[in-house]
């Protein structure tokens, strides 16, 4: 079916995706750089192209709390946040996943104070990996729109029933305009059925929801949650395949491997920097270097087997983190190492900390990372955790 070309920003693409998903309830609280998504949705409601209850709440905590109330009623719901707002709603994140509410939320990845910064990095969402949400990171506006639609199909799958956070890099995706293909409503309706949850507050069969449970049962509910998130592995693939059939744009599910087949040096990235890294891989390939790129799409569930398989023959693996757990290493690095070690693979792994607080990640920075990987692959000593493009000298 015809898809209309539009020139929009990542935020606008999210709003279009949300409109096409037809949520009944949207809860909104402004925060840079997410605000434009909510402004566009309120315009759509205002002009009547989106039939949704749009409530302007008083905080991010309330945004997600209200979304849960709506979801408990059996309504498809959407909300969005960023950074400080995501952390402010942290309690509700655990609550929503524990309550098995299939809410979809956009998060504009942004650094976390202090120091204050409105610019992008991944500290906000990565610090909430344990909140029970599925987390997907997108690279551009098209993927943002498409993943909002996929996210509902994944979250609402009865094997999964877990909320999904769609992460867009603040500014580099949220504020960058680019051409996208917008599917028709009819095509989206054919892909994404309307929300008809088995569990909801029903007047005929009332429920007591969100109860407490003693140690005798509590762990069982946590086990179920884990089952739901694990079941998402399979469902994500199914949904992505179905999406590919409907719209011609499959994304590869949990992760995407780029020119990795014979790659000896592999760089692993998250989010929009993957696009920049892809161009560097192309350039190095032209020079005959056997380099490849893995773009992790889902941090939860984590592509454990997929990464182990693609890095099977790698001589060194680099992990670019736009975040660091102070006193240790980046969260993506920890996760990748665990996947490799759990599989018995022990190539040298290097953690590149870059792009914190909106710091630009240049092509030459990525070239530097591959140089470090080549050196480590050749058996030379390496630094496990290295800040790239810090801009000043240090005593290290």
């Amino acid at each position: 079916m015809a898809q209309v070309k539009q020139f929009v920003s990542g935020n606008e693409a999210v709003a279009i995706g949300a409109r096409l998903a037809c949520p009944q309830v949207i809860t909104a609280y402004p925060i840079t750089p997410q605000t434009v998504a909510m402004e566009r949705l309120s315009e759509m409601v205002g002009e009547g192209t989106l039939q949704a209850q749009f409530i302007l709440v008083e905080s991010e905590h309330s945004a997600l709390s209200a979304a849960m109330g709506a979801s408990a009623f059996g309504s498809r719901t959407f909300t969005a946040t960023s950074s400080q707002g995501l952390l402010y709603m942290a309690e509700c994140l655990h609550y929503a996943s524990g309550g098995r509410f299939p809410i979809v939320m956009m998060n504009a990845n942004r650094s976390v104070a202090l120091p204050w910064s409105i610019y992008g990095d991944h500290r906000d969402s990565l610090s909430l990996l344990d909140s029970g949400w599925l987390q997907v990171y997108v690279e551009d506006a098209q993927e943002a729109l498409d993943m909002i639609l996929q996210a509902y199909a994944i979250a609402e799958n009865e094997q999964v029933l877990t909320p999904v956070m769609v992460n867009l890099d603040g500014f580099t995706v949220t504020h960058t305009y680019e051409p996208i293909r917008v599917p028709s409503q009819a095509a989206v309706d054919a892909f994404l059925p309307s929300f008809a949850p088995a569990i909801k507050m029903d007047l005929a069969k009332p429920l007591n929801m969100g109860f407490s449970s003693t140690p005798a049962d509590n762990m069982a509910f946590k086990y179920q949650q884990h089952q739901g998130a694990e079941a998402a592995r399979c469902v994500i693939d199914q949904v992505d395949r179905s999406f590919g059939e409907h719209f011609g744009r499959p994304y590869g599910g949990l992760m995407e491997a780029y020119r990795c087949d014979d790659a000896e040096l592999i760089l692993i990235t998250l989010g929009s920097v993957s696009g920049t890294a892809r161009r560097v891989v192309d350039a190095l390939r032209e020079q005959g270097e056997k380099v490849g790129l893995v773009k992790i799409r889902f941090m939860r569930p984590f592509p454990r087997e997929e990464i182990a398989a693609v890095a099977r023959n790698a001589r060194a693996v680099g992990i670019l983190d736009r975040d660091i757990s102070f006193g240790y290493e980046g969260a993506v690095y920890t996760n990748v190492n665990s996947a490799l070690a759990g599989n018995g693979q022990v190539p040298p792994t290097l953690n590149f900390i870059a792009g914190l607080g909106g710091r630009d990640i240049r092509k030459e920075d990525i070239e530097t990372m591959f140089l470090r990987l080549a050196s480590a692959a050749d058996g030379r000593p390496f630094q496990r955790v290295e800040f790239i493009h810090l801009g000043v000298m240090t005593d290290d």
Partner: protein
Amino acid sequence: MRRPHIRPFPRPVHIRDYPCGPHFQAGHLVDNAAGWRLETPEINGARCVNCLRCYLACPEGALYRSEKAVRLDKDFCKGCGICASECPLQAIQMGRDE
């Protein structure tokens, strides 16, 4: 009786025996409160004029209406004594259970 009642609850054996998420049938009771109390209200049917003050005042909803005088659901009375204390005609006395 138009009150929730105690129903059998087989302990979950398999993970599938649990509801999907912390959501369960409203008003599903598996346990009473009789063991909580030291004293039990005794309703003097001759004195009770069915004013229903005690019926309203019971935090448990353990007192219920009937034709002539209120009646007590002993399974759910915690013995707080509010009914006896609120009764304007002293038609309820708290007494020790046998």
